[in-house]
């Protein structure tokens, strides 16, 4: 436990020393502790020093008007090297955006590896065989995130499954979201002049355009592929699938031993039809009537 606290404090001094005058609340939030706990840690740090422990030999850290200042850092001017576990955690997180898997994206990881401790460098190869967070959309995801950070619009060709459209879109991206196994980019669509959500695996030729944009206030984040909460749809799952869907929908009604009924929110007849068809006959819409009709129509047209 002491070693955990030591790690935290050895990180804290350089961070406070570099950025003077931060609010205690901000610092507490950044390091994941309460304000009172942070003040206790600051009190402790005032007693840390080097022999012969004269006044100038102690870490000089103080809070003034709710802000933290460090005058003397006593050789704690830089953070300690990453530990092996920290380095491995960083590589795993980097994998999510494909920093490890795609040759063209290796530069960032290579820079990091150079500052890793020797034992972490040795473990990298083993780790890449034992942990895998990669997606098959690395390059597109990276482009979306870079575009959000640099506030540059994205352009891409998009196949909208719910509207039968295949269109060119320019979007000012605001957020990347992962839901139920799919990655989405949410942003202001220039063509529709409205906030829209796009599934990234349905976009091709995705690239940053030359168009800069400004974020004007924060519009409400869309939590999933439902734009207007038009209706609740009751769906019955049967057989082995019922057991699997219990995990996905913790709130459900049991209908006998092998059947469950769940409620989902849906706003598009085409979307609900696609979703139900994707269960290959193991899901049945019970109500409302528009949703049953949507599935019926989709089957008839196939």
């Amino acid at each position, binding site marked *: 436990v002491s070693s955990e606290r*030591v790690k935290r404090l050895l990180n804290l001094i*350089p961070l406070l020393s570099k950025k003077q005058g931060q609010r205690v609340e901000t610092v507490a939030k950044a390091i994941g502790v309460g304000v009172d706990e942070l003040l206790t840690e600051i009190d402790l740090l005032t007693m840390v020093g080097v022999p012969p422990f004269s006044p100038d030999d102690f870490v000089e850290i103080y809070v003034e008007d709710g802000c933290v200042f460090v005058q003397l850092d006593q050789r704690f001017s830089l953070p300690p090297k990453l530990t092996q*576990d920290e380095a491995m955690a960083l590589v795993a997180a980097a994998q999510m955006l494909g920093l490890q898997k795609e040759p063209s994206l290796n*530069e960032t990881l290579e820079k990091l590896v150079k500052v890793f401790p020797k034992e972490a460098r040795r473990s990298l190869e083993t780790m890449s065989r034992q*942990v895998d967070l990669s997606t098959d959309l690395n390059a597109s995801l990276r482009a979306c995130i870079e575009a959000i950070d640099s506030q540059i619009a994205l352009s891409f060709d998009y196949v909208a499954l719910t509207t039968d459209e295949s269109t060119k879109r320019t979007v000012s991206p605001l957020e990347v979201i*992962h839901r139920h196994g799919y990655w989405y980019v949410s942003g202001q669509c220039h063509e529709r002049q409205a906030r829209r959500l796009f599934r990234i695996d349905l976009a091709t030729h995705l690239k940053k355009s030359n168009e800069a944009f400004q974020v004007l206030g924060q519009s409400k984040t869309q939590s999933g592929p439902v734009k207007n909460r038009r209706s609740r749809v009751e769906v019955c799952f049967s057989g082995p699938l019922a057991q699997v869907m219990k995990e996905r929908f913790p709130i459900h009604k049991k209908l006998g031993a092998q059947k469950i009924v769940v409620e989902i929110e849906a706003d598009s007849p085409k979307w609900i039809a696609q979703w139900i*068809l994707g269960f290959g006959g193991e899901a049945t819409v019970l109500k409302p009537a528009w949703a049953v009709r949507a599935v019926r129509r989709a089957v008839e047209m196939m």
Partner: protein
Amino acid sequence: MDKTERLLDLTALFLDSQNPISFEELQKVFPSEYGTGSKESALRKFERDKAELLEAGLPLEYESRAAGHTPGYVIRRDEYYLKDPGLRADEMALLYSAGSAALASGAFPAADELKRALQKIAFFGDEIPRTKLQLDIARSPMTKHTLSDLWAAIARRKTVDMKYHSPHAAKVSSRRINPLGLAMRRGQWNLVGYCHLRKALRTFLVHRIQSYEVNTLNAKQPDFEVPTDFNVTAHVAHFPWEFKMHEPVQITLLLSEELIPLSKQLLGAESADAELEMTVTDLDSLLKFCLSMTGRIQVHAPVSAVRRMTQMKKAIAKAHGVKS
């Protein structure tokens, strides 16, 4: 003196002096900490402190043959301080986005380590842009701890006894596993390990592990070796039709024009024209996906796959009251 304070004082002392410091010198500097009682008990106390500093990742070493100096303990500054990795602002932002999303998901192994690592790297950045990246990962209330413990068990090669619930099985099964790897696919964490019950490699969804116990006996002694040819990627499917449910089947699909450029992203196989050939090991999963594309993907061959597709369509039609 508070133990953490003593450990920080020791660190400051070692960083300040680049010459090795003997235990006798430490006794003089910290008389009330190491100077009282017998030398053996004082030395044991210092050894415990030294272990804590090593546990914290500090490069504390004993130099027995230092040129011109008495032997003693030392922390070399160039071994201690993190060097600036020289990340560009966009690289820093990207790393932060991934790290922050992973932490916010509440289902990332080694979350504490990742948080500290990001703080250290952030020291070298100016303002860190906060890209909005949300990651929704399947989890149960215990997933965070389970992942963290599995991550440690994989690193230390310790066996895990667990109770696992598969929705396809009637009962909860008790398994002993040699945990070999973790992989995330479509928002779900998968554990790959050697199952002592089945005597083969198996994949388990982490959120379905009901309880588990990592072997704590001989904590520093690995319980097993990782096969030299093991690669977690080979055991966890990217697409549902890659699950090994039956022998490989060659299948031909016909794609609508707008889906041709998306074939790699949507199906994991590439085609320059409408006809796409692929090999699957879970045919039903592929057929269900084709159905969800509402006519944009047709199954062309083999006949058995076409028939199965027709069966599924009929089942959907019957359930929704289609007359013919």
